[in-house]
Structure formats: C-alpha cells, structure tokens
C-alpha cells in the first residue's frame, strides 16, 4: 500500500517492480504534495531528515522509514529522536537560537514581531537548557519533551 502511494507521487519514475532494488529517488517537490504533508509547516525539514542525501530526495526505503516513524504507534522515544533532528535546521546536533527562531517562524507564519520572536526564543532556551551552554542538546530536548504529555504527531 505504501508502494502504491510512493508510486502515485511520480508514476513515470517509480517502477512497479522493486525486486531488483533500483535506485530511484523521488524529489522533494513531489513528496510535499502528499496530503499528510502539504499543510505541515515542517514538511521540508521532515523530508530532508529522512533522505539519505540530505536534500530531500527519498528512496523507497527512506519513504518507508518516514512513515514508520510518523505513524501513531511508533514509540515516543523514536519520535523524540527524529523530532530533534527535524528541528535542528543547521544539523549541528544542537538546537541553537537560530534553529528555534526558524521553528517559531514556521509555526506562526510570521504573525509575531521579530522582538517577540527573540523574546520567546530566549525564554524557551532559558527554560529548557540544563547544562547552561545556551543551546539545547538532545538530552535537554528529551527532558523537556518527557514533561509534555501532548507531544504527538
């Protein structure tokens, strides 16, 4: 069923027969047309995180990975790990202030003024950062998420 959905994104690219494991990649622009992702503000980042080449072109394996993590029954820890990767825009394994600002802008779609954005980011880092390096490492992020029962996907 997943293969069917993968195929319908790019019927001319994806063959029906996958037994030889052909190396086909569906580009980012086609994947974000899927209904589940279309309105998601983080769709670019989500697809990039799961792609092997880091630019958002998904092979079928990557596609399956993405759906297996994003589905409802996947364990919370796995989602936390991938959420951290998604929110880490510059991929330095820390969520620094710029990452947070980008996240906030995507969430609110530019409704907040820049001063408010800075203020919110400062406060958020102040609250969640435990070891005092002004960035959120994975441990900080996980600690904060574990306190939030509403973390869903």
């Amino acid at each position, binding site marked *: 069923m997943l293969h069917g959905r993968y195929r319908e994104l790019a019927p001319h690219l994806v063959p029906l027969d996958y037994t030889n494991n052909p190396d086909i990649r569906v580009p980012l622009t086609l994947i974000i047309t899927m209904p589940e992702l279309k309105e998601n*503000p983080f769709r670019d980042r989500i697809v990039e995180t799961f792609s092997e080449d880091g630019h958002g072109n998904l092979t079928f394996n990557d596609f399956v990975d993405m759906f297996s993590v994003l589905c409802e029954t996947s364990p*919370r820890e796995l989602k936390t790990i991938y959420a951290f990767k998604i929110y880490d825009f510059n991929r330095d394994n820390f969520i620094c202030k710029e990452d947070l600002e980008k996240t906030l802008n995507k969430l609110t779609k530019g409704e907040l003024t820049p001063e408010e954005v800075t203020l919110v980011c400062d*406060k*958020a880092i102040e609250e969640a950062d435990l070891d005092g390096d002004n960035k959120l490492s994975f441990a900080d992020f996980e600690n*904060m998420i574990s306190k939030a029962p509403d973390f869903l996907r």
Partner: protein
Amino acid sequence: MARIVNFDLRYPLMEAGLESPVDEEGVHDSFNQLIAEQSQNGGLDALELQELQRELDEEGRDNVAYLSSPGHDYGRRQERWEAEREDDGRQTDSLAGERWSSATLKILSSMPSRTIGRSRGAIISQYYNRTMQLRRRRQSRPSIRDFSRSARPSIRGYGMEGDTTDSEGAELRKREHLVNNLQNLSVSDRVRMLRGMPLSVAEKSELRMQAMQKEQRRHSGRQIPCCSRLKYYIIIAVRQSWYSWLSFIHSLQLWQVALKRVSGRFGTGVLSYFLFLKTLLFFNLFLFLVTGAFLVLPQAVHPPLFSQGRPSFSGLELLTGAGYFSDSVMYYGYYSNYTLRKSCRVDTGGQNMSISNGTGMDCPSKRHSYNMPMAYFFTIGVSFFITGIILVYSMSKSFGQSFRIDKSHSILAMKVFCSWDFKVLKKSSVKLMSENICTQLKELLAEVNHKHVKNTVCQKLWRLTVHGIAWTICIASTTGCVIGIYYFSEHMHQNLRLFSRNTHQNPLLKEASMLALPVVVSVINLLLPGLFNAAAWMEDYDSPSVRTYVAIGRNLMLKVSVLGVLCYHWLGRVAADPASINLTCWEDFVGQELYRFLIMDFIFTLLDTLFGEFLWRLFSEKGLKRRRRPVFDIARNVLDLIYGQTLAWLGVLFTPLLPAVQILKLLLLFYIKKGSVMMNCQAPRKPYRVSQMTTIFITLLCIPSFIGASVCVTYTMWSITPSSSCGPFRQLKTMFQAGKRWVEELEKDNPSLSMLARAHAYLVENPFFLFVGAGIFLIVIYFHSQVVDGQRKIISLLQEQIENEGEDKKFLITRLQSIHEQKRTPTRRLTSQDSTC
C-alpha cells in the same frame, strides 16, 4: 589525564580526542567546514597536537587539586574562572565560540553527547548497552513497558567510542554483540527494542533476520527429540497465526477513515470525544457478550414454564420499554429462579416448578444443569469487577502519561515544540491553529513580562463577589431542580397509585404518562448547563483551563445530584413498598424506567444536535450573516456520554439487555455527531490540552460514574428484598443470600468443603474484612506517594548535577582553548622571527 577527571572512567576522552575523530557518516557539515578552514589557516596540526598532549599532561599534574572536586569548590572555581577571563580577554563565555582550534573542534565533535543518533556505530553501541541492561533487568522485575513509554527521561548508556583504531572491526563486533543480545531477549522485548531504534527500516530488518537466523541455527544445532521439535513447530505456527490475526484485527479498526477525517479537520481535541465514544462502545460490548452468553442465551433457550401472556406489540414499546417487552428476556422478571435442566421438563404442574429451588428432580441428565440464580449473581458481580479493573488500569495508564512529577517551568519551550497538532490537514484549520499558537505565545509572553501585577484589594473583592454570585446561581439552580425532580417523582408515584386502583384507564395512556419523568430530567440536563455557561461568561478566570475545570465541576454536580435523587426514588420508594402501586415485580419496573431514561437521553441529544448545531449554523449564516459557526463543546458532550453510561451500568442488574440498547445508541450517536460536526461546526478556538482532559474524563468515568453505579448495585444486592413472585431471587431475603445458599448446598453435598463455607462466612459477611482491606489499600497509596516524593527530590538533585557538569565542560574547553592559544603564539612568533631573519 584520566586520573584527574571526576567523570566516569568510561570516557577516555582526552586520550581518544587526540586521535583522529571517529569516521562518522553523518558528521555535521558546520564542524567539517570549520575544521577545514582551521587546518588551512594553521597547517601545524601534528605539531600542535603533540604539544597539546605534552601540555595537557603537565597541566594535568598541576591541576589535580582544584579539578578534583568541581562540585564542592564551585566558588573557588568561579573566581579562578573570573581571573582567567580577565587575563585572556579574548575568551568567550559560551561555547558558541568562533575561534576554536582544530584540536578542540575534533574533541568537541567526538563527545558522546554530540554523537547520539547520528552515526550508526554510536546507535549500535548505545543499543547494545541497552539490551545488556535489559537482559540484566530481566532477572529482576521491571518490564520494558516502563522503559520505553514512561515519563521519566530515558536511562542512557553511552556507547564506548574509545577503541577507534579499528573502527570497522569494532563496529562489526558491536553489531555481533547486539544481535546476540537481541536473540536472547523474549520476542516482545526484541520487537519493542527494534522498533525504538533510530535506524533505517532496511537495517532493522537485517538485524532482525540475523537474530532470528542465529536462533534457528541454535535450535537446529541441538539434538532435539522429535516430539519436542513438533512442539516447537506447533508453538511457532501458533505464534505466527496469532500475529497475522492481530494484524488483521488492526486493519479492521473500527471507523478508522471517519476518525481520520474528523481529526484532519478539527484536531485532536474533537477526536478525543470520538475516541472516548469508541472506548465506551467496547465496554458495553464486553458487558453485552458476558450477560448475553451467561444469562440471556440459557434463559432464552429454556423459557420459564409459567409465564403470563404478553400484550401485543404497539410502537410505544420502543420508547417505554413496557408492553410487549415487559415479560421478555429483557427484564429481570423473566429469569427463572431454579436450576435449568435440559432434558427433563414436566409439562404438568407448572405452578410447582416455578417455586422449586432446584433440588433433586429425578432427572438423569445432571450435566446439563444450569443454576440460574447463581449464574445471575456471579455474572453481574464478575462483569462489574472486571470492568472496574479495566477502568482503574486505563485510568492509571492515562495518569502516567499525562501528569508529570516535576511540573514546573518549561512552559514556553513546550508550547513551541509541542503545541502543533500534526493531525490537522485542512488548510483553514491549519491557519486557525497557527493563529491560536500565536495568541497563546503572546499571552504567555505578556504573563511572563507582567508577572507582578498586583490586584488592588478592591479588585480582588470584586472578583470574589462575581465568583460568589455565579456559584450561588449554579448551586441554587441545581438544588431547585433536584427538589423539583424529587417532588415530581413523588407526584408520579401518587399518580401510579391512583392508576393502579382505577383499572378502567387506558393502559397505553398509563404507559405514556410514565415518560413524563424522563422527559423532565432530560430537559433539565439540557438547559441547566446553558445557564452555567451564561454564569461563567460574566466571571473572569486566570486561565482557560481553570474555566474548563469549573464548568466540568458544575455540570458534574448537577448530574450526580440528579442521579442521586433518582436512585433514592427507585430504591427507596419503589422498591421499599411495591405493593402500594400494585407492582408484582418492582425490578421490572425499575429496569423499564432506566430503559426509558436511556432512550429519552438519546432523543434529547439528537434534538440538541439538531437545534444547537444545525439550526444555529443556519441561523448565524443566513440570519446574522456571520461566518462563525458554532463550536463543538467537547466537555459537555463527554459528560453526557458519561451520564448515559452510568444509567446503563445502573440498569444491568435489572435489564440484562440494556448494554445492547446502549451499543445501538452509541453507534447511532457516532454517525450523527460526526455528520453534525463535519457539517456545522468549526474547530475550537481555545487551546485544549488533550491528554490531561482525556485523563480527567476517564477518571470521571471511573470514580463518580462507575463507583456510584456499583455502590447502588451492591446496596441493592445486599439489603433490598427482591420481589417474591418474579426473578431469579424470589423468596430470598436478599439477592446476596443466593450465594450463601449455594455454599450451604455445596457443604451439604460435600462435607469436605466446609472450610470453604466457614471462610465464606468469615470473609464475606464480616465487615471487619472490609475495614482491613480498606486499611491495606490506604497504606499502599501512602507508600506510593512517598516514593513519588523521593523521586521528585532525586530529580532536582540530578538537575543540579547536570548544571554542574555543564559548567565543568565549559571550563575545560575554554581552558583547552586558552592553552592552545598560548602555545600557538610563541611558535608563531618564532616562525615570524625565522622568516624575517
């Protein structure tokens, strides 16, 4: 260097960092670039590294003293750090430093905290440690369920990255170890481990295949006798078929498409209402299967010998439950009080049969006997018990997921990361949601900035008065309505008395008049919450969640008092003196009343949906020309569901088929509500904390609703006299005596079971046992609360420790950098001198 550190000796970090960093696949781009830049600029890598090592060794010996106890000498460290900052003006405070040397960068990039989840090697070694811990834990008690889904931050075992000389071989070996560990776990643990690993699906399936292959090889290697082999094959086949059955069930999930559409448009708040409905449906299904299998089916197959003729079917039965339904398997009165036997049925002397107690009937076939009173008693008791256990279990699980021990700060951060509802798909809803989040963030910011707004005494007093007025209105209206219901029910009671004496009345009219009380109660249930909302509108609350809780509290108060007064009416008035209203079977009457209440509740919910949502939307769109549609009030609808379920639970004793009626009602309600929501409502504008609300609803379902119903049922069974001419407990003093009588019969038949009888007499009938049980329960609760307290203290200690470690890290790295800089400047000076010369 390893001697100095107070860190765990598993981090031979200082030594490891001086080798080249682990060849990781996903090494972050930014550090790569920085390293490349630095190495272009410097070009003195090897020299620097050697010097660094020498320097560090020297430094290490010097700095033993003050590095040995970073936790205690915080003050000293602080001033030393301050001194160094003054010395070296270029040192930056945070670790977002720009000019780190390549060596420092290499050390930084291979730190364990930066390699989590990035490279495959790190992941594999991390999970190797986890599986080892799990295997060790398996000898003691805790299960992996606590491990992966709990609220506590995970317990990580950092992988040992030390042995990096043979990275390929190390990774392979780690993989071998991991596969070994995986195959030693039980299947469910293995599956759960594999699911939690952040590797790609291809790798996970490879790991799984390897683990299973080894297992098979191990099995086939042994010399197994063929009967055990057959046993293994059978077990494997059964397991596989069980898995395929489970996946089939999952794919058949009820209403999956519909729920997805609702959540896509309205988000998880409205979805939680429908999920709650689904949960209630399953509870009722369970009750129905149990009562159907053990009560309805045997009695339907063996109809009682002496039964009066039934009136013909007229449409009114569906509403009133009387008439055609009155002497059927639906109600308590139909059930026989003797042991049903299959093949011996004496047609003559029907009267004698109905009052016999099931002792010897000269029947040869003893196997096919079915003791109806005992079946009735035990079925109701056991089904309530099991429902109670399931409810308490789901309540505690829900609590564990939603309420946290350390609930202090992190509000803003949580809002940023966790408030986006990813289930919402429709564009307009998404836009609404982002506006929502914006508003919340602005409010939080305002709150944080103006935290110390003090209300004047006048304002506080005004707020108190307003609250007082609102509460007075609510309580007064509730009391008024409850008293009204009390007197109305009394009036109906009197009417029935008059009717019973006057037999010329039209029986249909009499039945129709029975609908008056349910209609009045349903109208009250419909209108009064509206009044509560109006009262709350003029009040001013600190936060929207407090407002929701107050609304739920008031609604709950109304429903509990209404149900309380109704129970008094049925059990206190009707059951106490059934002869006054000419009732031969008061249990039938109460069962019919409950049926009527359930049906009326359903009809009024439909009317409310129609008028409240559909017509209101038409009115506001066409009449008022607004685009604002009505909002689906989740709390009120869920409380209505809980009320209906309480009625169903109250009625199971008197009407074993009531769960079936409730199932039909829930099914219809689902489709009607879903249609109405999709057509008429819009997504809620106020923030809704789903998991907390779900926990509250499950708690409300368990504590007032289920416990109240079971208290009523227990009271009925314990102390009310059953009617003497109908039902399985006729001519007993209480229903409970059926159990006692059965035990006495067992003792008579089988004297060795006298221990059981005596145990029964002591345990069940002696109230002392209840007190002891309650005492033990309270002690267990106290014990658990102390454990939670201790955990809270540990969490705060650990947080402090993490902060200290962070300070240590900062200190060490800046120190490293300063040493490197010191070393670099003399060599630069030397080379520049050389070049000038």
